């Protein structure tokens, strides 16, 4: 006995070129739909994982989103610095448990260089509560020691003990390099899936040392301080870019934030990372919604393509329908046949779309990670994804009603014998 579904499948198989193209169009649209959703949720998760356990981020007064972006995500640059004295004053507040100073502005072959101190390794947390760990070597203790993020070491092939030169500025091609004061790789960090992986960490003293004979972004002519002599000098920084604050008690957060924002000696800004992230999402919300809308329209286009293909085939299938009617197919069989075909096409399209998604993720992940520092996990399909897939299938079935009605009408008019 041959079920109607098998007739539908055989019929589709006999038109395999147009059928494959149609399925392909649906699959691509489904991949886009799921991909946009995936990147959206994963980007959020990844961003949220980047900074944990930090109560406040303090920087020069600007906007909370820019401060968040440059201090934590190494995106963009600070417009102004914080004086060392202000930093010291806030860090000694009785409510403050720890601080991590951040000094940005230099790079190494496209990777940002972060000047900080060993508190960074002690207090910085990512992905809820994970500590930074060193996979080989140790944190810096010399002025010219550097600790590399996992990707930096991997991409540039560095090992502990290698010597690196820091470029001035943050372009991928530095304007000038601090060639006279090379750093030595003292340690390499475990991969975190956060911007830490893309960062070269050095001590604040190191940052100070390479700039000691520089003024206004260029070496001062005639003034050359070599690496050995610089160690004898006072390497106390005059300014830093921003700092992270951990408080003794969460309840002190808003009071502390207000004290920083009202700090009289210098215009400063303190932000709560969670609140700033939220602000970032609402900024990106419009773009995200636009992307989602576009991907929904692409799915609609894919399904319209399927309807077009089925409608176009109906004329040459009039005789097929007449034969089916003559051997006893009822009107609803003809109707169901077309709906089954549409349902099958959209189901296969959806499944193939999922395959494309995972294949795509597999190849795109290393690129996204390297380019944007976004770590996207290859997870199984979420409930939301399944809902989308179900919706695509249902929409496909529903769209199949259009050619099904057309086939029904022609078939009823033709009867068993196609009168041409």
């Amino acid at each position, binding site marked *: 006995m041959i079920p*109607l579904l098998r007739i539908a499948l055989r019929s589709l198989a006999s038109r395999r070129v147009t059928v494959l193209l149609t399925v392909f169009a649906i699959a691509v649209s489904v991949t886009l739909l799921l991909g946009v959703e995936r990147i959206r949720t994963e980007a959020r998760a990844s961003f949220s994982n980047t900074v944990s356990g930090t109560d406040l981020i303090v920087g020069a007064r600007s906007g909370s989103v820019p401060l968040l972006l440059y201090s934590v995500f190494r995106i963009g640059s600070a417009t102004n610095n914080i004086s060392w004295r202000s930093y010291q004053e806030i860090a000694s507040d009785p409510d403050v448990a720890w601080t991590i100073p951040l000094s940005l502005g230099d790079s190494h072959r496209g990777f940002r260089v972060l000047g900080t101190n060993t508190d960074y390794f002690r207090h910085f947390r990512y992905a809820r509560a994970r500590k930074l760990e060193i996979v080989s070597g140790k944190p810096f203790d010399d002025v010219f020691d550097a600790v590399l993020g996992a990707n930096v070491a991997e991409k540039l092939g560095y090992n502990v003990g290698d010597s690196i030169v820091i470029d001035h500025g943050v372009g991928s091609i530095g304007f000038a390099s601090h060639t006279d004061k090379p750093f030595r790789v003292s340690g390499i960090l475990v991969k975190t899936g956060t911007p830490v992986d893309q960062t070269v960490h050095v001590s604040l003293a190191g940052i100070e040392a390479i700039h000691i004979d520089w003024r206004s972004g260029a070496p001062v002519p005639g003034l050359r301080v070599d690496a050995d002599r610089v160690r004898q000098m006072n390497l106390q920084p005059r300014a830093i870019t921003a700092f992270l604050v951990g408080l003794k008690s969460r309840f002190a957060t808003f009071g502390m934030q207000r004290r920083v924002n009202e700090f009289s000696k210098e215009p400063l800004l303190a932000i709560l990372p969670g609140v700033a992230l939220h602000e970032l999402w609402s900024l990106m919300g419009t773009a995200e919604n636009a992307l989602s809308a576009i991907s929904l329209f692409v799915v609609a286009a894919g399904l319209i393509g399927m309807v077009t293909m089925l409608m176009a085939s109906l004329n040459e299938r009039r005789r097929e329908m007449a034969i089916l009617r003559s051997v006893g197919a009822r009107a609803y069989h003809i109707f169901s046949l077309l709906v089954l075909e549409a349902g099958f096409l959209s189901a296969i399209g959806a499944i193939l779309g999922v395959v494309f998604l995972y294949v795509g993720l597999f190849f795109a992940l290393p690129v996204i990670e390297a380019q944007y520092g976004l770590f996207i996990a290859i997870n199984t399909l979420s409930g939301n994804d399944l809902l989308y897939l179900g919706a695509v299938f249902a929409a496909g079935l529903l769209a199949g009603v259009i050619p099904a009605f057309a086939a029904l009408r022609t078939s009823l008019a033709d009867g068993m014998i196609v009168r041409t």
Partner: protein
Amino acid sequence: MGAAVNLSDIVFRWRKSGPVVLNIPSLSVATGEKAFVSGPSGSGKTTLLNVLGCVAVPEEGRATVLGESIGELSAARRDSFRADRIGIIFQQFNLIPYLSVLDNVLLPCRFSGLRRQNAGGAAPQIAARARDILARLELPVETLIDRPATSLSVGQQQRVAAARALIGSPDLVIADEPTSSLDEDARKSFIDLLFREIEKNSQTLIFVSHDRRLEGMFDRTVALDRVNRVSPTGISV
């Protein structure tokens, strides 16, 4: 035994505003009869077949097929009635191109429980029955049963169509110019084989053709151009 088909005073138009295509005061075919319906093209043969096949319902008059007054049946009932009781062979392109020979023959059993029962009920039995009929129609069963229908010669395709019309022993077999694409010898042997099967199962055959050379083989001839009071131009006479 009564009439397999009885039409009285039927009038048929494809569309409400269209021309009258059939206007038949009386036409009947007895049960077990092998009737030859002749008529030039335009005499309403195709339309008559749609009426006999219970696809088209006359707007006036009474059309009785195998004891059922088809005007009184719902569309769904007519469909299942056709599936159960009537086998149909067309002029050409009878087979679904993307199905195998076997699947084509078994199609009526797919849509009719009665014909499935008549053919043996379970899948292995009806497949065996299909092979049996194909063999009796002198087709090389083993070599072509799984082949796509379109890979057969026209003569073979017509025999497969006949096997499909015969499987599950429907009471009425309607053939619409089934031999017009066959050569002289093939035509003769096709009709002989068809008769053999029809007679064996005491089925009624209505064979429509414009080729009057064949009419001598049949029990009776109905000249449609005389029975149907509509001229080829669609004007009633």
